[in-house]
């Protein structure tokens, strides 16, 4: 597939996640859709969100397996937490974790335990199967994060540090900005009309994410000379993509429900990978 024209794509966190952490149709869609654009821009803010969100869930589960040292105990905790409002994983994810690549018969399993000891029990095998796969996925994603992209809008207040292994556990620190003041804020604060437009759109949707975003936008409007806090930077979320995407670019996201109204209010285009593929079908 070759680019049809000189269009530019501006990649948002959800598509980066599909490319780096998903397998199958979603990954293929994202990858194929990117093929229709000549210039592929990835803002550092997307990497920051990716690290603090999806990649963090991978690391959290990895470390849970290390700490509990048991697959069944980890699964038990996941199921118990899933029944509370404080959920970390979807129920589909928890169900999917019950599968193993090492399906062997009972007799063979007993033989292996006899020969190799506790490391060969089903629980230990599954624990390490996922522990190692999670660490592999995290390191792979980090190495691949900039592959094929032109990185734009580096923010000096956020330092990219590769995942580290300490005492068997993975660490993603830092996932938020450092001590110096926000470098995005001056560019956002100097556009009061854009802030007002985005807040008007945000206020029409009633969910927790939009409420936090609306509050952050309101705070910047009200006090344009006060630098953004770390939380405000995080809460702006999709608004950052809407603000910083080049006018002639297409924002590529699977989160159309939240991002498209924001982008369109500023006269920008937001499409999902499947929409890009449908538009270009037959070309």
């Amino acid at each position, binding site marked *: 597939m070759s680019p049809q024209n000189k269009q530019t794509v501006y990649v948002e966190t959800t598509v980066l996640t599909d490319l780096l952490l998903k*397998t199958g149709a979603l990954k293929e869609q994202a990858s194929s859709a990117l093929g229709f654009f000549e210039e592929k821009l990835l803002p550092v803010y997307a990497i920051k969100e990716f690290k603090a969100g999806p990649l963090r869930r*991978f690391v959290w589960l990895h470390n849970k397996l290390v700490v509990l040292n048991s697959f069944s105990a980890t699964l038990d905790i996941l199921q118990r937490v899933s029944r509370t409002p404080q959920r970390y994983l979807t129920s589909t994810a928890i169900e999917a974790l019950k*599968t193993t*690549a090492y399906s062997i018969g009972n007799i063979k399993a007993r033989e292996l335990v006899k020969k190799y000891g506790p490391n060969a029990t089903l629980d230990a*095998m599954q624990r390490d199967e996922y522990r*190692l*796969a999670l660490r592999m996925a995290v*390191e792979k994603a980090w190495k691949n994060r900039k592959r094929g992209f032109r990185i734009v809008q580096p923010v000096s207040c956020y330092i990219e540090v590769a995942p580290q*292994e300490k005492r068997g556990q993975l660490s993603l620190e830092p996932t938020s900005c450092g001590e110096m003041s926000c470098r995005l804020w001056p560019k956002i604060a100097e556009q009061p009309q854009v802030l007002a437009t985005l807040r008007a759109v945000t206020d029409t949707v009633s969910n*927790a994410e939009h409420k936090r975003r609306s509050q952050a936008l309101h705070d910047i409007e009200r006090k344009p000379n006060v630098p953004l806090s770390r939380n405000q930077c995080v809460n702006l979320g999709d608004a950052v993509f809407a603000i910083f995407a080049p006018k002639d670019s297409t924002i590529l996201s699977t989160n159309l429900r939240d991002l498209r109204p924001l982008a369109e209010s500023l006269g920008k285009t937001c499409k999902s990978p499947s929409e890009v593929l449908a538009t270009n079908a037959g070309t």
Partner: protein
Amino acid sequence: MSSKEMSPNFSVSRYTTGDKWVLPPYSELSSAPALSAASMHEAGHTVASQQLIADPSLGTGGLLIRAAMELVNPVPAVGESPLVDDLFSQLRGSTLSSALHLLNEALAHSQRAFDAIDSDPVSADDEMQQLQAILPELFCCRSIGDGFGALVNSIQYALVNREGFPLTKSQISLLLGAIRKLREAPFISFGDAVNLAMTFEDAELVIDPPALSHLADEPTE
């Protein structure tokens, strides 16, 4: 080096024939086996003592193994390599020797699959199925290191995720190369294992458990 120059800590193993000795540089720190140049030449290896590299981060045992590994040229593609097997089994005990034995089998299957793929694709696929049957036991040897375990895990998922669909020649070639690498260097670092596994993905092999795809989804509030 004459026997007089050897350290008193040095334990002469079965490699006692020949008049020229090549010692790993850390023999004096532990009871390392010595390798006679003659026996190494007989086994088909080339002495390359100038390649020895010290790496203090590996500890004495690691240094010794690393030194010994770099002392000889890579293990031949397929088949037994008594020198390396014996050396490793003395140093690390039964898990490592089991792993090396299983890797020999795995290497033989994948090599035969590669050789047969053009003329007899059914046999090639069957060889890969037999390779797959070895992997659970090979995964039991993962105490060798996380790099070893992660690479075996990636090979297993590369095969499982094919859901029975035969591998292409280039995919077999990649797995063959990875198994050969494990055979030569079972103490592979995690970073090197990641780099190798990433080449599988470039050949359209999926090495992640399907469950991880769901893990990336954010739970709704």
